[in-house]
């Protein structure tokens, strides 16, 4: 049951979004010294979608999550859950559950008691609670550890208790606040596929917060990229990666070459004169090209954008070839490493760069 990471929720989309924010603003502090953690953010997440809020620390992604959970009250704007305005509801009256970055497991309760907590607070009958707890612990593969206390578990196991606890009450939306950041790389990869599996099996809408672009690209149906309290771009991972709307998004997600260029008469030219793309605007622009979209000409092949090789960095599967254009702009090309010792063309040699027309993004400055 492999879930297509590039499906942007199309198959799940229903008329009413699971959760939506309308022009949500959150100010901290008072008077002139106030900081806008969120600046008129509007977004809607479809039912059953795996939606990721991605951005550097301090961009407001966690604040938005806390506004949805009810831990923060927006200074302005409304939040709807399943069509109902929940902006003024306290956290315990919202059918959303949170997986905290620190897990926040109750240390004085056993694993099973932790998972049962939400169901008990909802007033579910005892038999149903214990049935659901068993099912949830089986789902996260912790049935053997039901009687343990959280402190007796490893980080990965605690993480799964936190997930089971948040999933048990069958929330409308599950909020995940950088849940994988405390795990080591191998465990993180494991939990990434575990999360996808859980989302698939439960059908619950996930809103996931991370600063890890790779995590966002591999797991999400759609990504919302945030910076300084604003939502810059929302779209499926492929669109975010290939069609970034501005320089920040292009720079934050993956590696990118930024090359100064000039737009005139519908065409975009590099300083050295080559036409690399089209643009309706006129004046100085920036051209963004992913390193892996640049191909170096073979010896004897003519044409391409002329550049000088300055060096190479071996990365394993690929190598970075550091180049310089005639106008002095540095450019990096990512090429597959060859089994031979040399990672690429010799420093000082001249090569031609070829870029597929679709791989060139013209960004406003």
């Amino acid at each position: 049951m492999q879930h297509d990471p590039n499906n942007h929720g199309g198959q799940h989309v229903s008329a009413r979004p699971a959760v939506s924010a309308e022009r949500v603003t959150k100010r901290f502090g008072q008077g002139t010294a106030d900081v806008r953690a969120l600046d008129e953010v509007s977004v809607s997440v479809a039912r059953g979608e795996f939606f990721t809020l991605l951005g550097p620390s301090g961009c407001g992604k966690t604040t938005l999550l806390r506004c949805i959970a009810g831990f923060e009250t927006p200074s302005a704007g409304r939040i709807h859950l399943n069509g109902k305005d929940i902006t003024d509801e306290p956290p315990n009256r919202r059918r959303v559950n949170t997986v905290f970055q620190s897990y926040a497991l109750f240390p004085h309760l056993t694993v099973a008691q932790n998972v049962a907590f939400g169901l008990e607070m909802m007033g579910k009958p005892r038999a149903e609670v214990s049935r659901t707890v068993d099912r949830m612990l089986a789902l996260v593969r912790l049935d053997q550890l039901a009687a343990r206390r959280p402190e007796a578990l490893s980080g990965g196991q605690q993480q799964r208790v936190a997930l089971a606890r948040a999933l048990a009450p069958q929330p409308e939306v599950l909020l995940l606040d950088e849940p994988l950041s405390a795990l080591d790389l191998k465990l993180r990869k494991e939990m990434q596929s575990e999360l996808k599996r859980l989302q698939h099996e439960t059908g619950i809408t996930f809103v996931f917060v991370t600063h890890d672009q790779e995590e966002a690209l591999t797991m999400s149906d759609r990504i919302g990229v945030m910076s300084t309290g604003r939502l810059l771009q929302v779209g499926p991972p492929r669109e975010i990666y290939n069609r970034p709307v501005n320089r920040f998004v292009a720079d934050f997600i993956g590696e990118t070459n930024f090359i100064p260029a000039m737009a005139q008469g519908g065409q975009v030219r590099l300083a050295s004169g080559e036409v690399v793309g089209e643009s309706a605007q006129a004046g100085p622009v920036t051209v963004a090209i992913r390193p892996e979209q640049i191909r170096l000409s073979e010896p004897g092949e003519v044409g391409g954008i002329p550049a000088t090789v300055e060096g190479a960095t071996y990365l394993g599967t690929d190598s970075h070839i550091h180049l310089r254009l005639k106008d002095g702009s540095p450019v990096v090309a990512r090429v597959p490493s060859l089994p031979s010792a040399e990672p690429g063309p010799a420093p000082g040699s001249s090569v031609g760069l070829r870029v597929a027309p679709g791989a060139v993004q013209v960004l406003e400055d």
Partner: protein
Amino acid sequence: MTEIRVAAAPDAPPLAATRTAPPFSVTRMPGFGLVAVASFAVLYLPIITLVIFSFNASTSMSSWGGLSLDWYRAAWRNEVVQEATVRSLILATSAAVISTTVATLAALGTTRQGRFPGRTAIYAMVNQPLMVPEIVTAVSLLIVFGFVRSLTGYQGLGYLILAHSAFCVPFAYLPIRARLEGMDRTLELAAADLYASPVQAFRRITLPLLAPGIMAGAMLAFVVSLDDVVITEFVKSAGQDTLATYMLGQFRRTLTPEVNAISTALLGFTLVLLTGFFLITRKRARDPR
């Protein structure tokens, strides 16, 4: 080869430094052992002497007349001592319960509201009994309660309970506040997130996690109340001796080893109490916090 030697050179000084200059240790100071032994001797020799003389068969406080439990028997049969003991226990229990309740509320108020103007002032005000000289408090209570007495005619234990509850508050407050400040606030958010009302979150999460702090506070308050002489002496009505003021009164008259026996019993009781508490908290610490 030269290159290697140059590269290794910057590492050498810190290595040499750790070898020649160990971190400062007070245990290596000259005379440390002597000071330590002297300190412990001053702390414990008098108590040991007291305990030994409580088993003295003779009436004298300075000469040994053989081993006996006579003074324990005498204290046990003494109706005044019995009354004073019961009064002390009632007083200490009431003061512990009242001051711990008040201290818990004060600790919740000062740690769960975020920073607010005047918070430091409130800390200081809650801890007033630690700073104002006890004799000053005693005299002021004497004046105020004397006024109330003449107005109402009430002579009961209420004055003592009120006074003890008040000066026990900071002793209960400090461990509870420390416990609250060390508690992860996210746990309370998690409880609210899982549909617990504020009251449910407090009862199911905050209170159980706070319990060791509350117990420590109550225990301290109990012992402090049991031990108090100055304020009790000023506030008590006629015939309201506690164990502590009774002993003081005995010293004013004739010195008998009965007082030693009472002191030893009190010491034993406090030790049992504190050991029990230590074992409980240590078990909880090994279990989750």
